[in-house]
């Protein structure tokens, strides 16, 4: 089963508004990464947050991680039409040497001009 599960599945907002997407996972993790994917294209790495971090910022992006709840959120502030894309979280499990990234299905964000 998928390790990361994003919520909501789809989100539609107006330009200038903030967008919040959530991700839940099931096992202990080494780190959690957020990616963006434009319509059927490759993924763009947005931000990595380690299991011992609680919050991270990058430009208009803010990511939080709550390991006790096994959840993360991605906040995009002052959204733009160009932010329209699918956003996925991916986790790397902790322990052992299993370094594969496990992805959720993603949140489809539509930012209306």
């Amino acid at each position, binding site marked *: 089963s998928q390790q990361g599960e994003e919520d909501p599945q789809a989100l539609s907002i107006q330009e200038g508004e903030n967008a919040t997407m959530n991700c839940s996972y099931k096992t202990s993790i080494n*780190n959690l*990464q957020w*990616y963006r994917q434009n319509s059927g294209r*490759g*993924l763009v790495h947005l931000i990595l947050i380690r299991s011992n971090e609680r919050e991270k910022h990058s430009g208009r992006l803010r990511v939080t991680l709550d390991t006790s709840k096994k959840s993360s959120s991605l906040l995009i502030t002052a959204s733009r039409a160009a932010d329209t894309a699918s956003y996925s979280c991916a986790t790397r499990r902790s322990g052992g040497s*299993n*370094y594969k*990234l496990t992805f*959720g299905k993603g949140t489809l964000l539509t930012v209306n001009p």
Partner: protein
Amino acid sequence: EAGVTQSPTHLIKTRGQQATLRCSPISGHTSVYWYQQALGLGLQFLLWYDEGEERNRGNFPPRFSGRQFPNYSSELNVNALELEDSALYLCASSLPPATEAFFGQGTRLTVV
């Protein structure tokens, strides 16, 4: 610095044929990952190679195989193609394995 490159961009094959997809990682990256993304689904992990060895394999049949070359580039081979193999195949690289993974633009495989 060049990113992860994949070739070809698009590939059309007939059911039963074999497909070969190629990936060149970012210079210096030793880990290469392959993922399948079928229409409307999330990324499904296929294979992970590091330092020329297969380190981990997803829940896919043996007709999905690959290898990593001494220069860390990688090939994904899909034998006996089936219609449901039609998908976007994404390659990613990272260094070291537990850090950020960077993805290529993918190869869209269509099986007819």
